[in-house]
């Protein structure tokens, strides 16, 4: 039953799966190649979206595209503010859920899960209905977008920090307490550093969710334009190539951050392993 033919079949089979997986991965990168390529594009016409010639001018003048940099900086502001608030509130909630037992814990868990399982269009239109009913229909803009972003980032923060906290070895905290560290000392010197990677990951996730959101934002933005809304607008009238410069920079920055975190983690593992 274990003849050479079967073995050959299994060998091909195992590498077929790997090859298939790599193909799928390649498929996920195809648009990224296009974004990078198009950031160097010198278009003949704004209306036809194709590669016409090489230029560096998009990179030299990213703000030459009308209104793009304004939208970009607004998105960054909203992203940073939403990240700070959501990370703070979400981390507190994660500590409550992992470290404390109280009535209604499973209800709280459900309440945190629901925003992640609701379609954005429904959440966005519900919020709009609330704002309009509360008389804020004419004042949609920066603050209503921020409120919405904090809302949908919260659950993702809780889930990320909770996972880190739940996987934490509490013997380390026990040891600190046994060595007469106070409550505050233990938290600052032991618990926080151990949970920090989870909090950092949650913050990065929040920022990218907020920065990239379109559906909820578009319903609650009034006349305010964020970067995704800007892209949506120009998609109908002709896309300036600077949009691809922003896309490329976003990609590079996030890859650098993710790789740095991974390298740090490996180094720590090596240190811990001796």
């Amino acid at each position, binding site marked *: 039953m274990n003849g050479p033919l079967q073995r050959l079949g299994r060998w091909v*089979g195992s590498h077929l*799966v*790997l090859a*298939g*997986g*790599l193909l*799928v991965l390649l498929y*996920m990168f195809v*648009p990224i190649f*296009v*974004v990078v390529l*198009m950031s160097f594009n010198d278009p003949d016409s704004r209306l036809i979206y*194709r590669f016409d010639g090489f230029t560096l001018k998009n990179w030299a003048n990213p703000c030459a595209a009308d209104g793009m940099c304004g939208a970009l900086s607004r998105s960054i502001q909203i992203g940073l503010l939403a990240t700070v608030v959501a990370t703070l*509130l979400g981390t*507190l*909630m994660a*500590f*409550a859920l992992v*470290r*404390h037992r*109280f009535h209604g*814990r499973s209800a709280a868990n459900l*309440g945190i899960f629901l925003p*992640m*399982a*609701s*379609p*954005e*269009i429904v959440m966005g*239109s*519900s919020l709009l*209905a*609330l704002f*309009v*009913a509360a008389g804020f*229909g004419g004042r949609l803009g920066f603050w209503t977008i921020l*409120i919405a972003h*904090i*809302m949908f980032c919260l659950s993702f923060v809780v889930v990320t920090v909770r996972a880190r906290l739940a996987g*934490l070895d*509490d013997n380390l*905290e*026990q040891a600190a307490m*046994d060595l007469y560290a106070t*409550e*505050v000392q*233990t938290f600052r010197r032991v618990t926080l550093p151990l949970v920090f990677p989870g909090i950092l990951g949650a913050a990065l996730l929040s920022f990218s969710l907020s920065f*990239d959101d*379109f*559906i909820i934002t*578009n*319903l609650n933005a009034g006349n305010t334009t964020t970067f*995704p809304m800007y*892209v949506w607008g120009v*998609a109908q009238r002709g896309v300036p190539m600077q949009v691809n410069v*922003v*896309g490329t920079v*976003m990609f590079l920055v996030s*890859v650098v951050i993710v790789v740095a975190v*991974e390298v740090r983690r490996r180094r720590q593992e090596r240190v811990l392993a001796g």
Partner: protein
Amino acid sequence: MTATATRPAGSSAPTPEPAPPAKRPRRNLTGYWLLLPGALWLAVFFVVPFYSLLATSLYDPGGSVLEGYDMSWAFGNYVTAIQEYWRPLVRSLWYGAVATAICLVLGYVLAYAIAFKAGRWKNLMLILVIAPFFTSFLVRTLSWKLLLRDDGFVVDTLQFLHVLGADGRLLATPVAVIAGLVYNFLPFMVLPLYASIDKIDPRLVEAAGDLYARPFVGFFKVTWPLSLPGVVSGTLLTFIPAVGDYINAQLLGSPGQRMIGNVIQNLFTDAGDYPVAGALSVMLMLLILVLVLVYVRRAGTEELL
């Protein structure tokens, strides 16, 4: 001899521990206080809005955003919504289901390869799965528009292979919209699948082989059932956003591929017909809720069999 034993016996009882072990968490009010700010935020900006939406869907359709609406329990809004927009609603569910099925196949291959075949490249491959998605959703979707355009490489190749007719196209067809959905929501499938498959003990699959199960049989009797939790959460995380999405339908499709998200967004922001838009939103939420409940039930019982 443990470290705890060196501590004076009585001292641990009066001083409350800041971080009690997860096995016996404290039961006091601190938990509530920590939870309160976030819970309030979610209550006010996630739960209450659903009531506003429900109320909006029952407003008198005669009003307008500027003049305000009267509450008249107008259940007729739902009838109007179904009569006028049942096509985009059904289409959304259909596109979402097809995209989810394709994502499941592609995502399973990738997740399986990462979990079992990648070896020391596992972490790198996981990073690569997430990396493309830090670039703007809309910019990436615009790239697909470029790739799938009428005289582009993909269409030319398909025409050469006679998959497409001489004047066949991809843009403004369901194919382009579904391809866009598959692309955009694939990581939501891969990550939960990976988490599930990675937990499977490879010795179980080997054991099936030792008991003369062919690889194919071994997969369907061992690997697949054990990965079901990942399959269920992955398909839900893909299906729900895909049904509500309208970016792909707008950028890659034509009015003939309009999805329910396009309609709702349009009614709210351009047409200003809040009651019908609200009714559609409520129906979408209920439909998804029912489908998810039925699906989780069935998947749960399958798992037990």
